[in-house]
Structure formats: C-alpha cells, structure tokens
C-alpha cells in the first residue's frame, strides 16, 4: 500500500485492454475465429450449386442468402463470447474490477466484431460475385453488412451474457436473439434487393445506422446487467 487514493486507470484504457486481450487470444487460437467465416463462405457458395446457375434466380436470391448466412454465422460465433471467461474465473475478476462493467462488455463486443463481424464484411464481395451482383450493389451489400454485423454483435452480447452459465449451447441464445435480430435481417436483405432493382435504398441504410447507434448505446448496459445476474 503506497498511497491512500491511487490513480485509477481510465475507462478507455480498460476498453482497449480487454479488446486487445481478446484479439490476442483469438490470434493464438485461429480455429475458433475461422469456423464462422468458413460457415458463411460455404453456405454462400453451396447455395448456387443447389438451385442451379440461372442468372435471374441468382440475382434474385443473392441478397437474402448472403444476409441469412451472415446472421447465422454471427449467431454461431456468439456462443463462446463469455464462455471461456466464465470457466477460468476471469469473468468474476472483471465483475470485481473498478472499471465500469458496461465498458468492459463493450470492449469484449468490439473484439468479437473485429474478429468475426468484420471478416464477414470483407469477404462478402467475393461471395457476391457468385450471385452476379453488380459492383455498385456490392458496395451497398458491404455497407449494410458492416452496420448489420455491428448490430448483431451488440444484440448477441446480451444473449451471450444471459446464457453464460447455462451450457445450453446455441439454441437458447438464438431463440433469445432472433426477435431482436429480425429487423436487422429484413432491413439488410431488402436494402440490397432494392439497390439491385435500381430502387431508392438510402432509407434502409439510415434505418440500419439508427439501429446500430441505438444498440451501441443500450446493449452494453443490458449486457452488464445480464452478466451480473448470470454470475450470482
């Protein structure tokens, strides 16, 4: 004990530290990160093989398939968000740390998005090619996926926090999250479809952006509250 009122580390330092630690952990175990990405790529490439190469059909179904696959891939990766922290006791250490819990939860969610959301966005143009998507529509697809995966990571963190001690797997988590994720899927897929049909699509992007901002400001608090309940 050197002083009675030691300097507390800042909250952004805490956010950055936990995000960096999770990314470092993912780096040491790349398999966990690549699984959802493979899933996304596989669904998107198998679908055209199954329905046939008709250009009309592919252009029509492309946005929907890409979006559903992205949603499911994100759900797959959410299950493990807090699980290892719960098992090795570092979740408890997070709960008794002087850092605000919502900030730490946000840091973990940020890392999750960087590890599993962003790669989906980045490989989506490649997969969009299989659906004969024109270049400007690919841009719209990437923008909607960018906003959409942010929403899904944030919403998913609430579900992951609620189910952390339960060992029920992905089923319960998906059931909890799907009603909240439905608007994201509808907005995302329909915006891309509208763009593909040369229709006005900007509204959808604004709405997705609004959803992302709302999730960003509310989800960390819900996740923190859920974590406290789960570790009682």
């Amino acid at each position, binding site marked *: *004990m050197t002083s009675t009122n030691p300097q507390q580390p800042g909250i952004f330092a805490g956010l950055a*530290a936990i995000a960096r630690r999770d990314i470092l952990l993912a780096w040491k175990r790349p398999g966990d990160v690549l699984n959802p990405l493979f899933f996304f790529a596989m669904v998107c490439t198998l679908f055209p093989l199954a329905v046939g190469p008709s250009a009309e059909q592919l252009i029509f179904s492309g946005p929907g398939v890409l979006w559903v696959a992205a949603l499911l891939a994100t759900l797959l990766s959410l299950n493990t968000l807090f699980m290892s922290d719960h098992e090795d006791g570092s979740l408890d250490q997070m709960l008794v740390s002087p850092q605000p819990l919502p900030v730490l939860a946000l840091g973990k969610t940020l890392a999750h998005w960087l590890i599993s959301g962003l790669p989906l966005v980045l490989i989506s143009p490649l997969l969009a090619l299989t659906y004969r998507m024109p270049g400007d529509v690919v841009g719209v697809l990437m923008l909607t996926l960018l906003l959409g995966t942010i929403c899904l990571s944030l919403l998913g963190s609430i579900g992951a926090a609620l189910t952390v001690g339960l060992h029920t797997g992905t089923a319960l988590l998906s059931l909890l999250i799907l009603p909240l994720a439905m608007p994201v899927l509808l907005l995302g897929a329909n915006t891309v479809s509208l763009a593909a049909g040369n229709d006005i699509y900007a509204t959808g992007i604004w709405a997705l952006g609004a959803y992302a901002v709302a999730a960003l400001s509310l989800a960390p608090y819900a996740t923190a509250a859920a974590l406290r309940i789960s570790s009682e």
Partner: protein
Amino acid sequence: MTAKLSASELTLIRGETCLFQDLGFALNPGELLLLEGQNGSGKTSLMRSIAGLLSLETGEIFWNDEPVSRQRQEFHGSLVWLAHRTGLKGDLTLVENLRFEGILRPQADVDQGAIFERLEISRLKSLPLRSLSAGQQRRVALARMLLADVPLWLMDEPFTNLDRDGRKLVVQLVEEHLEAGGMCVMAAHQDIDINATINRVAL
C-alpha cells in the same frame, strides 16, 4: 461503526438452504478476518457477497461507513480477489496476463522483477500459463495480488495447490501486507499460523 470494512445482519439463502444468518464482522487496517468452516459451509459464498457478486437476503456491507452497493466502483478499486479459479488466461503468458490486469486496477509502484523472483516464477515468464503446474499458476495469481495497489485482499483458500515453501510464503506476504496497514479476508478450512490480529467468523 468506525471499522474500515464492516457488515451486519448478513443473511444469504441459496436455493432452499440458508447459508448464514444475522452474520456480522468488523475489520480494521492491520487485521485479518478469517472465515472458518467445513466444505460447503458458505465461505466462498460469503466471500462472493463481500466482493459484491452475490446479492444478500438481508444486511449490508460497509466500506468506510458507506454501503458498498452505493460505491461499487470505489470499493472494487480498493480490493483484489484471489479466487478459487485464478481468472488468468491459459493461452497467454504470465507477462501478457499481468499486463492486462495492470490496466484494470491501480498498480503499486514496485519492482516487478523482484516480485517474480520472490514467487520463483521469473523463469516462467514467456511460457503460456496452461503449461504451468497448478501451484505455479497459483503463484502467478499471487503476483497479480502483489502488483495491485489496494488495501483489501480477499483470499479464498490461498494455500490450495501450494507446496510447503509456497504456503510459508503466503503467510509471510499476508503478515507484511497487514503490517503495512492493509487488510485481509481469508477463507480457510485448515489451521493457519499468522502473526496478526485475527477476527474470526465461524460458518
């Protein structure tokens, strides 16, 4: 009430069993609070309640005469918890683990190398923690405790997995911490020989 850490009328019910009822204690700088009891008697639950992880049926825990629930962040900034599960990442090395911990809570201005030497873990610095033995991992958790600049130590079964030298070292560390004006809450099911003012709570 003038004690630094105190509690009164604590009752905790888990499921259908009442783990403790109307329990109270007081702890001042330089003192050790020893939680004694059989396996499953609620030592860890009491520890978790003190740390604010379990909500109590009745009663309140006070830090500086203020309820902990009203100053959670300040209270958590004054404690470090050596839990049964170490809370360290097996995939990361000792240095990576402690660097992360160092950003979460205030750090003491001490020589890290000297602490590693004393805990005999300095040659394990670059190994991932999962390749260390349970006792060695325990020592890393102790290093985290020593590096934090906090007055209150919560120690849940600190002697688990440690060899005789390790157990002796823990006793020494606690004595030094108390002498410097620190406080310690310890759950133990075995007799311990610590030279300090000991308040006992039997569960």
